[in-house]
């Protein structure tokens, strides 16, 4: 009888079984077939258009409503447009086999209504602002596993839909604290293909939920920084890489305060990333745009990757990127019930 129990244990314990062939270390998956990011597409609001990436975004809206009857509908239409555009650049929508998409709203409202007219197999994802790297990671598994040749990943966020769900009515005259970040209005989409030209996803580290006891939902960057630190440290440990292996390590939306904290936090762990590290949340808006600690939202890391990093990688100006999108997994209810903020980060290694 005892023997049977032992056998069961050995079947689930990797320490006895050895790692599965596509996993290294504790949390990192490798994609030996190197799925290729075949295309990207970006769309954003007017404020983002006036920001640092303004002239690199495929399509800019004239206002936050873009002729729709609600902000939620605008967000859905942005996501639909980005997915159609990215698929169009990579051989057409009909060649896409699976769509992975997500946003910040309850029941993934923006995503579900944006996808409903596309008529393609779809899986909805929620990882708050980490959804973009979560989508890339899962798409990598699907393509590398041989389950599909072409997967589209899309994420969206909208300043006004996020404000009214998570915070206050947009016309309420309140003062935002300096640590607060501004939710990006926009959507980004990529197509991951089995073959083709372009930057490839080589490995990915699945993050753990880290909660360092932060309760202020205005301080999401500082709440998420330890989660990003944990995933980055684990990725380097699993792969045996030095931070210098990468031309750039980019977190999703830690903002200026979270960025400072992450560098310090990793230094404490003996990892120095200060020379090749940037945060996507610090790359969207100019300082004069008065957004306080930077940008946030699902579209933050997606816009910066699709509009900037992807271009640099195609031009071979950047060869190795570790993209670590970060998510703050609280809800308005959890905040009202005085819960602390659980956070997560997933790392994707993209190389050309």
């Amino acid at each position: 009888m005892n023997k049977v129990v032992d056998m069961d244990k050995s079947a689930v314990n990797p320490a006895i079984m050895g790692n599965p062939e596509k996993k290294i270390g504790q949390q990192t998956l490798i994609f030996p077939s190197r799925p290729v990011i075949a295309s990207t597409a970006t769309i954003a609001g007017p404020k983002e258009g006036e920001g640092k990436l303004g002239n690199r975004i495929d399509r800019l809206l004239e206002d936050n409503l873009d002729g729709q009857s609600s902000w939620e509908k605008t967000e859905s239409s942005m996501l639909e447009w980005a997915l159609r555009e990215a698929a169009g650049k990579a051989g057409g929508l009909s060649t896409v086999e699976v769509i992975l998409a997500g946003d910040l709203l309850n029941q993934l409202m923006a995503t579900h209504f944006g996808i409903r007219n596309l008529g393609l197999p779809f899986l909805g994802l929620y990882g708050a602002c980490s959804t973009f790297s979560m989508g890339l990671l899962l798409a990598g598994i699907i393509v590398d596993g041989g389950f599909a040749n072409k997967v589209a990943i899309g994420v969206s966020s909208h300043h006004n839909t996020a404000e009214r769900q998570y915070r206050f009515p947009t016309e309420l005259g309140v003062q935002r604290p300096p640590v607060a970040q501004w939710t990006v209005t926009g959507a980004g989409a990529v197509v991951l293909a089995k073959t083709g030209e372009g930057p490839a996803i080589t490995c990915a580290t699945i993050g753990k939920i880290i909660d360092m006891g932060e309760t202020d939902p205005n301080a999401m960057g500082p709440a998420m920084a330890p989660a990003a630190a944990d995933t980055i440290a684990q990725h380097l440990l699993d792969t045996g890489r030095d931070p210098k292996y990468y031309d750039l390590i980019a977190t999703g939306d830690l903002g200026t305060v979270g960025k400072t904290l992450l560098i310090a936090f990793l230094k404490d762990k003996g990892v120095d990333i200060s020379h090749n590290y940037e945060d996507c949340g610090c790359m969207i808006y100019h300082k004069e745009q008065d957004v306080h600690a930077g940008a946030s939202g699902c579209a933050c890391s997606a816009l910066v990757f699709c509009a900037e990093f992807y271009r640099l990688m195609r031009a071979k100006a950047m060869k190795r990127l570790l993209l670590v999108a970060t998510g703050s997994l609280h809800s308005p209810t959890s905040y009202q019930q005085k819960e602390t903020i659980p956070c997560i980060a997933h790392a994707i290694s993209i190389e050309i």
Partner: protein
Amino acid sequence: MALFETAKKNRYQEQFEQVKPKPPLLKNLVWAFVVGGLICVIGQMIQDAILKVGLGKKEAAAMTSVVMVFLGALLTGLGIYDDIGKRAGAGSIVPITGFANSIVSPAMEFKREGFILGVGAKMFVVAGPVIAYGMVAAFFVGLIYWLRH
């Protein structure tokens, strides 16, 4: 282990406090004082004008509130009040115009969910607690007044 976790969290919170950007206190105070003061000056001017027309003191005070609430609501509808509030903070929240803003802004925001479940139900999400606890406080003040007279 739990103790170690708590220590780790506390240490992180300390680190955060050190780098946390502080609000520009003096600038905010000046803005709040000037804007809050201006709103009160406008209110006083309106009251004086109403008194001149010949209304009694009690009626003029009520009329002034009505006009100020109207102005707050109008500026909210025009999308100006939130810009004032961003700079003035409590200077534009505390006066009665801020109260109007706290009711009109959710009413505008939730119009897309319809007039019953949207505007009607959500109108008081911000001002609701003020009204509820204001009434409780008024009850107790009234009770004390009644007992003393």
